[in-house]
């Protein structure tokens, strides 16, 4: 199998698996209990929180809220911020955000707040001043992803945060760093954000666990209600194994990050160079000057992405297009639509994404395998 869908989810790092193992067997307690079994897991979880806070440059461990994944973290950041006051307030975000942010914004609007969606250019970039122009005293949160999960375009989050801090200091800045963390320097300092979402499975941790960094003093209305865990911000019994595994993967990712950028960046560049050589008219999407090193989002003019993905799958190559709906059919991506792609162009785009397991040489090798499938398709076309 040639796995080129690391942006969807990636292999669990050995450090993460090893860290989780005790919590899947003898260390099984509920972190909220009073007995020794509970203490044992509670300690492990709080140690993990401290390490996560350090890795993100947070001032205090309790600025880290553990969640059930990136979507939950985004919902808590966006809806939680807008609903925290005496009345629902405004959300400002971009047209290329993950659905977790866009739908949370729509939810706020449904409850009487508002959600303003700012457009992007043809590379998927938003301009800080466009966000500022929409901001007013009713705005609770501005949410801009660190990097796009489809095309990989990196947004000017730091610039946006600084501009907001200067013009609207009471407005919180959220960044969904779910896709970016594995390869980009994501900290409170580097982003300037008040809220940062992460999802473990994108950087070598398990699925179903994530976190939200929340700057001290920022108020959140919980979006999941229950027993009051995580200082009331995210109720539900802690997924201790997942939390410990996530933080181990964070540590491993941060330690590997420079090498990842070099190794995986070379793989991606080699992939695109080889593929461009054999596919006339191949278009590389996104902001090629400012994009995640592991992403290659390309358009194959005249070739249906749906057909290509099936042919690739039959050849053992895993790639993606758009976002899979519940049925498994491919929906036209809202990201590409926001970038100005029509349905035909959007229907010819495929995302290949590399991961921590890849070596620099894997890129060209993958391109040859993809090219072989394209050649076989052309023989029947």
């Amino acid at each position, binding site marked *: 199998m040639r796995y080129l869908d690391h942006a969807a989810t990636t292999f669990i790092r050995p450090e993460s698996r090893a860290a989780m193992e005790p919590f899947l067997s003898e260390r099984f307690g509920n972190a909220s209990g009073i007995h020794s079994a509970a203490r044992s897991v509670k300690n492990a979880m709080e140690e993990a929180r401290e390490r996560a806070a350090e890795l993100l440059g947070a001032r205090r461990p309790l600025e880290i809220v553990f969640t059930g994944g990136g979507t939950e973290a985004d919902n808590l950041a966006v809806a939680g911020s807008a609903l925290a006051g005496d009345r629902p307030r405004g959300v400002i975000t971009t047209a290329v955000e993950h659905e977790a942010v866009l739908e949370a914004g729509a939810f706020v609007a449904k409850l009487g707040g508002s959600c303003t969606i700012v457009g992007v250019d043809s590379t998927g970039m938003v301009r800080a001043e466009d966000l500022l122009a929409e901001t007013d005293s009713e705005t609770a949160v501005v949410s801009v992803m660190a990097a796009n999960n489809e095309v990989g375009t990196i947004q000017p989050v730091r610039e946006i945060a600084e501009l907001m801090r200067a013009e609207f200091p009471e407005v919180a800045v959220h960044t969904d760093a779910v896709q970016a963390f594995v390869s980009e320097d994501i900290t409170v300092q580097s982003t300037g954000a008040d809220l940062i979402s992460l999802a473990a499975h994108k950087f070598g941790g398990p699925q179903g666990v994530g976190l939200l960094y929340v700057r001290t003093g920022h108020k959140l209305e919980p979006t999941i209600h229950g027993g009051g865990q995580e200082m009331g911000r995210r109720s539900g019994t802690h997924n201790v194994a997942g939390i410990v595994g996530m933080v181990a993967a964070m540590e491993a990712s941060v330690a590997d990050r420079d090498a990842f950028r070099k190794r995986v960046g070379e793989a991606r560049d080699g992939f695109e160079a080889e593929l461009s050589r054999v596919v006339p008219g191949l278009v590389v999407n996104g902001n090629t000057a400012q994009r995640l090193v592991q992403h290659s989002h390309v358009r194959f003019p005249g070739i249906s992405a749906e*057909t290509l993905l*099936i042919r690739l*799958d*039959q050849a053992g190559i895993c790639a993606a297009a758009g976002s899979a709906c519940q*049925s498994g059919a491919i929906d036209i991506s809202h990201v590409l639509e926001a970038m100005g792609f029509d349905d035909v162009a959007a229907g010819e785009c495929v995302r290949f994404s590399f991961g921590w397991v890849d070596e620099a040489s894997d890129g060209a090798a993958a391109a040859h395998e993809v090219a072989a499938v394209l050649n076989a398709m052309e023989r029947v*076309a």
Partner: protein
Amino acid sequence: MRALVAMSGGVDSSVAAALMLEAGHDVVGVTLKQWEGPDGSLPEAGCCTVGDAEDARRVAAQLDVPYYVLDYVEEFKSAVVDRFGEMYRAGLTPNPCIECNRRVRFKAMLDRVEQLDCDVLVTGHHARVTQDATGFHLRKGFDGSKDQSYVLHMLGQDALSRVVLPVGEMTKADVRVHAERLGLRTASKPDSQDLCFVGTGDYRDFLREHFPDSAHPGTMRDLDSDTVTTHAGTADFTVGQRKGLGVAVGEPRYVVDIEPATSTVVIGRKERLLATGCRVEEVSFVADRPPDDMNVDVKIRYRSPAVPARLERDGDDWVVTFGKPHSSVAPGQAAVFYRGDEVLGGGTITASIRE
């Protein structure tokens, strides 16, 4: 041989996939996403629902074959659903399953078989394809009570050369036995009777929601008494319909005719339904040419027996003359020509002919 199996999530296509695999072929399972709710979800009732796609996926997983959902929503909407509304608007009684087969399943999808690196398209229809020196033949399914050859009459030689219908050789009971033997989860699943895009609801509600202008209120005129009443919309009626007319004249009344221009529904005694023939358009023949012998049997509804008739070309259309008067000829339905168990071809009824 690599087979692209259209898996609806029902027992027939599940077994079709299993039979192809048992015969030593490679199998790729697909479900066509044909219709979706406003939020892009699959329908919850009828054929090809969320649950059906899940059943298909699970069967494919059990058979250990790749499985995909292919998006045909756009093609299906324009070729089948919009046409469904237009035909009702025109006072006709459409058969959307036939339009789907003609324009989506055995056209758009068949065209992609090669693109998906497959050799044949396999479906779970109860009909048979045979081949001899004269070419490919389409025949009734072995299980007469489940025969679906009527809805496949538009297939020509090129299509039949690339279509395999494995369960056409079996009774429905055998299909279920086979599914049970293989432990397929769809073994005892009931047959779906609903239109995939209408679901369990009434097609009339669907029309009112999606094609509000298809409901032309108007008058209902009785040929056999002087009663004139009103009705809520011509789309609520089909030629031959007896129930739901909202009239009580002491003896049964049937819909005899629908006149869209004046929104009039004409009703009358049963004998008014008798037609000596019908006009048929968009006619195709399985052999890609008309038969030498124009004496055939014709079936004018999915669930009515084939009756002797004679074919005659009239410009682009064909005229079917029944051996003896036949009732309930509904324009919009298909007239399918048979000789014995063989399908010769068919088309869409445009009008009944009454002496």
